[in-house]
């Protein structure tokens, strides 16, 4: 279980987290912004699981389970907000949302 060092997990986690963060910045469509956020959350999960396998604990896996549950909630509420914005304003891009009235 400890063949792969902790550094490998953390390097992979940082690479994927950076890509998710970059996607959140540069993406124009709202749905793809949320998908980049899912990628960043999964990168955090990789770091937790890797630290867990290195330390021989089980707490990180429980944190990863909580993160997965909260990511499901976040996807539900976020996509509901996107559908509501589209239904009210007919926009689906981040630069078209001009105001928050309504």
């Amino acid at each position: 279980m400890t063949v792969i060092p902790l550094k490998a997990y953390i390097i992979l986690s940082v690479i994927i987290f950076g890509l998710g963060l970059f996607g959140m910045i540069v993406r124009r469509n709202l749905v793809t912004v949320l998908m980049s956020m899912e990628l960043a959350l999964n990168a955090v999960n990789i770091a937790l699981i890797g630290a867990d396998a290195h330390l021989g604990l089980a707490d990180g896996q429980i944190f990863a389970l909580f993160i997965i549950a909260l990511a499901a909630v976040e996807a539900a509420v976020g996509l509901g907000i996107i559908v509501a914005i589209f239904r009210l304003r007919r926009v689906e891009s981040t630069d078209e949302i001009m105001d928050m009235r309504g």
Partner: protein
Amino acid sequence: MIQWLAFLLFSLLAVISALGVVILPNPVYVILSLLSSLIAIAGIFFVAGAELVGAIQLLIYAVAVTVFYVFVLTAVPWEKALKKDSHYRVEGALSFPLLLLMYFEILVVFSLGVSASPKGQIRELSKKFGNTEVIGSILFSKYFLVFELVSLVLLIGMIGAVIIGRKEAQTYDSDTP
């Protein structure tokens, strides 16, 4: 050795798919790329010996959440996104050096040296009972309150999604500038 091989394979797949999530213009391709990345990350969890989290990753993320994204993408017309530019080019070019700076910072931190001593309190227990039983016993003893709070958050999220997503009587097309 076989663990290293599997880890490298899955991490390569995950990184390439993550690049696809960031780069590809079509949202449907982005969803497929995200699905591939999630499956590769589940493979990394299996390599790390976390079978329960890997299985839940496959079940919840790779099935439920991705199908949910596909449903929402059918509700929002994604063909409109193809006509416009799919990325912010200027913002991307400005923030890409910051991303490289973050990677460089991690390299500096690793060259300075980071260490965590393996305590291994659970390791004998995990060998004796198996990973899933250990997670269940810790989850329902040490983190029981947090578990209940997560169930409450799930309930609140469900109610909020229903309230946000219900059909409004009128739309506000007229007063948008």
